[in-house]
């Protein structure tokens, strides 16, 4: 399956989930498919979408938080799996789009390309609900159960390596505007206070 197909299959079952997307391919593809403003699209801090999502999940315990991670980002911060396991948030689901290349920056191969069992690493870290899915049919069949299960869960999605420039444009806003659009969307949806009375 292609990355876009995997993202579409996951997004179809997101329901009310708030997404946090790793920078690059994961963020661009999630935006292309959902156009969702109730998602945070990382533009930096590569590797730390997972930790950002964990902080959000621990703060909004009743909100489903879906992390759309990538293999390159996960490998920059594998320790996030230990932290995730130790906190065991029931509302957090971790998806990893594994295209085996650094697609956004030229398609060069991932370190240890094709030999890493990310689901085994997640299980080893203490996340028992971890699996690898390598075909679109299998993913479409599995998604209802994945969407319904308690977190923390870890779903490794093996997609085709697309080494050419995908050309998927990033979201049409950035920086502070992303902060305010995301924060205001969460305030509206959950009745929480992110910004104070003077707007900061």
């Amino acid at each position, binding site marked *: 399956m292609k990355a876009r197909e995997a993202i579409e299959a996951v997004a179809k079952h997101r329901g009310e989930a708030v997404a*946090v997307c790793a920078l690059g391919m994961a963020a661009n593809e999630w935006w292309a498919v959902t156009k969702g403003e109730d998602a*945070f699209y*990382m*533009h*930096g*801090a*590569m*590797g*730390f979408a997972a*930790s*950002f*999502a*964990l*902080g*959000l*999940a*621990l*703060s*909004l315990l009743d909100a489903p938080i879906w992390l759309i991670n990538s293999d390159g980002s996960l490998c920059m*911060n594998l*320790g*996030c799996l*230990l*932290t995730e396991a*130790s*906190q065991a948030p029931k509302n957090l689901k971790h998806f990893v789009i594994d295209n085996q290349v650094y697609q956004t920056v030229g398609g060069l191969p991932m370190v240890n390309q094709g030999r890493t069992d990310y689901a085994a690493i997640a299980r080893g870290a203490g996340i028992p609900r971890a699996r690898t899915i390598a075909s679109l049919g299998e993913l479409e069949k599995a998604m209802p159960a994945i969407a319904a299960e308690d977190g923390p869960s870890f779903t490794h999605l093996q997609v085709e390596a697309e080494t050419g420039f995908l050309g998927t444009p990033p979201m049409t806003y950035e*920086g*502070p505007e*992303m*902060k305010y659009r*995301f*924060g205001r969307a*969460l*305030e509206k949806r*959950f009745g*929480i*206070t*992110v910004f*104070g009375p003077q707007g*900061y």
Partner: protein
Amino acid sequence: MPAIRESGGIMSVNESIHEQLKKAGVTLAASLPDDWVASLIKRIAADNTMRHVSVAREAEAITICSGAFFGGVRSVALMGATGLLTCTGELATLNLRHQIPVFLIVSQRGSIDDHRIYQEVQGRRTIPLLQAYDFPYHIVNKPDEISSIPDAYETSRLQKRPFVLFLTRKLVKGDGA
């Protein structure tokens, strides 16, 4: 003057910092220990009104606090100066880029009274580095300065960027230690 408990008696430094964090509305703390802040972390971890998250790398603490910001939760990242140096990339590309405030309490290692060779560079270069990024900081050197924490926290929110509150050796270890 050290803080006095409502029930009488003098508060310890860690007790005062913990109390001031609560006064600032902090309910989540993410940490990786340095030996100067270890006892403060232990104290906070034992407080069941505050969610404590142990992390494997300091930048996790920064980004967990950033996520918590959007959940409407006030948080603190606790670490040593060495850890702070490891997360300047994340502080710049996430917090500075998106103007996301994050409040850090950091041991001010490498000071003139910290005679550990592996803390020497931290002592010389941490503050110039913060100045280069234009990250505000405040140094707490005496027990009666701990009450500045709620103001420092508010400044972090107001300036919409990382704010580092340094704890000196004199504060956390005392004069004679």
